[in-house]
């Protein structure tokens, strides 16, 4: 089926992910209302906005953790609106969660390895010793090291500090080498030194992939993102570079207005 698919005229280049008229209603309340998004391939795109603006809901819609009330989603030109979450992940769109998502009763290294294990395809082989997974051990430990957690590789993920859980989440996501990563507040609750390291990591990994990121730390957003979409009350308020967006009168008002609520 070929649908009307008009890229936003403002964006140049190759669009990897695009949403049209994305809407989500919860029992009479509209959390996301007619949102259009075009994410350019290879870019770091930030989604910002006050609390309750609908950013996390957008992520849930794009990865089908929630069913959109209406609207369509295309990834690499393919309509993925009706695909289940696991299939979207298999196509190469992998998300993180706002509330840190680790496997608490597995070690840090095992957390990463469970992502690597996906490369075997399905793992229904209940009769094999888990020794067969040791092929992934070196890479798992390397990924753990990459986010600065090597001295914690044997620690149960549930025992990590909040900031370290976030770092582990990124390592786990990265292990899939996804074409596109959706990061929901990856640096919330992190100490400054971790913010610096994870920022640098995000920049490094963005070299050959696309990143859509929700982030409240505006200096990180200014530093990292190529393009920013501002969401308020479920609708797109502004879109552009950091300079364009930060001068937008509605954006200033939305942020100040929200802090008074």
């Amino acid at each position, binding site marked *: 089926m070929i649908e009307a698919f008009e890229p936003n005229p403002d964006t140049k280049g190759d669009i990897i992910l695009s949403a049209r008229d994305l809407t989500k209603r919860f029992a009479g309340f509209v959390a996301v209302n007619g949102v259009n998004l075009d994410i350019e391939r290879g870019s770091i795109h930030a989604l910002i906005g006050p609390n309750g603006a609908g950013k996390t809901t957008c992520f849930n819609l794009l990865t089908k953790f929630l069913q959109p009330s209406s609207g369509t989603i295309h990834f690499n030109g393919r309509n993925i609106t009706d695909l289940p979450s696991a299939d979207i992940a298999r196509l190469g769109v992998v998300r993180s*969660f706002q509330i840190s998502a680790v496997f608490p009763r597995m070690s840090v290294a095992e957390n990463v390895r469970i992502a690597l294990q996906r490369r075997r395809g399905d793992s229904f082989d209940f009769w094999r010793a888990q020794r067969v997974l040791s092929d992934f051990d070196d890479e798992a430990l390397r990924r753990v090291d990459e986010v600065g957690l090597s001295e914690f590789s044997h620690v149960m993920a549930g025992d990590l500090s909040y900031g370290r859980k976030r770092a582990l989440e990124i390592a786990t996501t990265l292990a899939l080498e996804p074409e596109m990563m959706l990061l929901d507040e990856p640096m919330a609750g992190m100490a400054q030194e971790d913010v610096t390291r994870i920022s640098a990591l995000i920049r490094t990994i963005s070299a050959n992939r696309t990143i859509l990121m929700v982030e409240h730390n505006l200096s990180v957003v200014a530093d990292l993102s190529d393009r920013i979409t501002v969401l308020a009350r479920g609708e797109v308020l502004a879109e552009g570079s950091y300079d364009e967006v930060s001068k937008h009168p509605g954006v200033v008002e939305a942020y100040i207005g929200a802090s008074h609520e």
Partner: protein
Amino acid sequence: MSVETQVRSQAEALPVGTPRLHIIIFAVLLVLLLIAPFVLYPVFLMKVLCFALFASALNLLLGFGGLLSFGHAAFFGSASYITAYAAKDWGLSPELAILLGTAAAAALGLGIGALAIRRQGIYFAMVTLAFAQMVFFFAVQAPFTGGEDGIQAVPRGHMFGFIDLSSDLTLYFVVLVIVFGGLLGIYRIIHSPFGQVLKAIRDNEPRLISLGYKVQRYKLAVFVMSATLAGLAGATKALVFQLASLTDVYWTMSGEVVLMTLLGGMGTVFGPLVGAAALVTMENYFAGLGAWVTVLQGVIFVISVLLFREGIVGVIARLTKKSL
């Protein structure tokens, strides 16, 4: 970090092979169980063994897959009925009767599991309970189950045609082989690539979906495995007591096996064995108290939930910092 500590922490981070401690525990357990029938009543021991397997089967689903079934009596009981009927009315040999009962539990597990896994959390538990109640009512109504009397005087027969099971001691060693085999099988499942996925589902299902895993298939697979092993326990039990009865499919049986697992420590390897041994011993010891046994079980349940949620083995594992 020195090379040595690095190697050690890597081994802890991603363990390969079976921990020495587990091998030792299994070996000691086996030796004790080989001596036990010469010291304790074989029938009592066989009951403990059957329930140890039943509780371990539930633990595979609950402690490793994170799915609480409140209807496992359906698998235990239907296997028990089918085995009893096949051995008595069709005159099947004991190994075939057990196989048939177990296969029936597997098929039932596939049907109930496929419907139950569509629900989450407490709703999952309620769906399993509802189906188990249907199986119970079926057992009450169906002509071949013997109603209130059940199927009695089930012949134990000759295993493979030449092992006479009429002696309690002989049967004990057959039951030991079946149950120990089942326990080792569960141990392997837990420590396989599949088991690794199970633990991840238990820990954080949405996250695992976001990594591209189709979790429903894994849930169904573990449900069927758990039902099959529960069936194996029920089928074996039917031969031990030469009886299949409504008690085996009643909801209290489902509750009891959950209690055994919680008391021993869900999500541990050895907890269900301890829980089963503790509750079966208590039932036998206090059999004279009649209905008060149920009250006592209730009290134990409340205490274990309030005071030590991790269960007996869970607490020991925490204090000794060992995975048990």
